[in-house]
């Protein structure tokens, strides 16, 4: 859509020192590549189902989550995000958006093969939370969300199976 700015981004690439351009950290995210069946939602509420699909292209992890209309939902919900590794700050950065226009920017430090802790940097609503993803095994992961950066009481949880 904003191809001008896009290509301007390319231009900026040329002036970034080569040493800062490594993005090998994205390989940590290869675990997620594929299609997952997920179930969960707000705690103490009836769980819902979704399908999450992950691909990696040129050091960007693409996430697409389809939530079919169910329960009281009148239309499907879609959420998409892009994640890459910032070698300059040694952390992952993720930008995402829902089909309601709600967006977020989040960061996560590399944590090996066990999962990630994502901290919101900015959101459309201004509220900043966090989440922790744990890779239980090769075919299952769970994510637990907290309403604030420091809260110890989770507000939602989801489990995904490959």
């Amino acid at each position: 859509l904003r191809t001008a700015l896009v290509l301007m981004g390319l231009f900026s690439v040329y002036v970034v020192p080569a040493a800062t351009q490594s993005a090998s950290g994205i390989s940590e995210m290869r675990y997620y590549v594929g299609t997952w069946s997920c179930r969960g939602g707000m705690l103490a509420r009836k769980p819902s189902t979704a399908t999450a699909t992950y691909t990696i292209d040129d050091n960007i992890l693409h996430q697409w989550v389809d939530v079919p209309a169910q329960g009281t939902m009148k239309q499907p919900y879609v959420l998409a995000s892009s994640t890459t590794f910032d070698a300059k700050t040694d952390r992952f950065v993720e930008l995402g958006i829902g089909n309601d226009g709600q967006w977020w920017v989040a960061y996560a430090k590399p944590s090996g093969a066990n999962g990630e802790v994502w901290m919101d940097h900015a959101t459309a609503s201004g509220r900043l939370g966090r989440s922790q993803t744990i890779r239980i095994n090769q075919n299952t992961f769970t994510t637990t969300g907290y309403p604030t950066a420091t809260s110890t009481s989770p507000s939602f949880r989801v489990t995904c199976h490959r």
Partner: protein
Amino acid sequence: MSFKNIFGLCLLAATLVACAGAKSAATVAATPTAPGGGDPLQYFVGAWRCFGGPPGAQPNKAIATYTLKNGVLREQLVVLPFPVPGAPPEPYELSVLTSYDSKNHQYVNVELDNHANWSVTYSKVRRMGIQTWTDHLTSSGKHGIGETSRVSDDVFVSVALPTTNRKSQPDFRSQCRRWKKAGGTGTLGNGTVGDEGTRTPDPLLAKQVLYQLSYIPRVH
């Protein structure tokens, strides 16, 4: 895997009061309707061949592929720098996600490239085929303006200003032409190719062709 992974499930969960940063699913609303009906973002769906750059500089070539599903437009823009002898060309990729915020009556655009540069940008509903995007938040802290104009069904052009002062001089221009030929026969970026054949929305194919095209010597 991320917070927002469940953020979606959180929304669907019912009723939706909030998980962090979320709002009610009741506000998930349709995008504005195009004059002929349907989603105005549909215009972009497919593959485009683009070229552009700063004024006076050799333009870069790129392929942009758009897909649209349930109100989220996804763009993958792939650029391969002109190869350096003895070194593998490093692809540049930018991922752009766009949807409509009906509560605030604006489009929202999030962009992330494979060098971790990112931006969040807003645009009010377009007028007269021109859509103006204003940076809301960027990784660099610098805010600019982008303007996209739909010249025809098959061509759109973009201009970027380095600041939010609309009187500032553009520091970037680009043009995208709809790609109608899978495995196109012309060179990319001359503005005259790709007018025959069938459209392809296949991003993998787009990348492959772009890769091949990147080895076509530049005309200086």
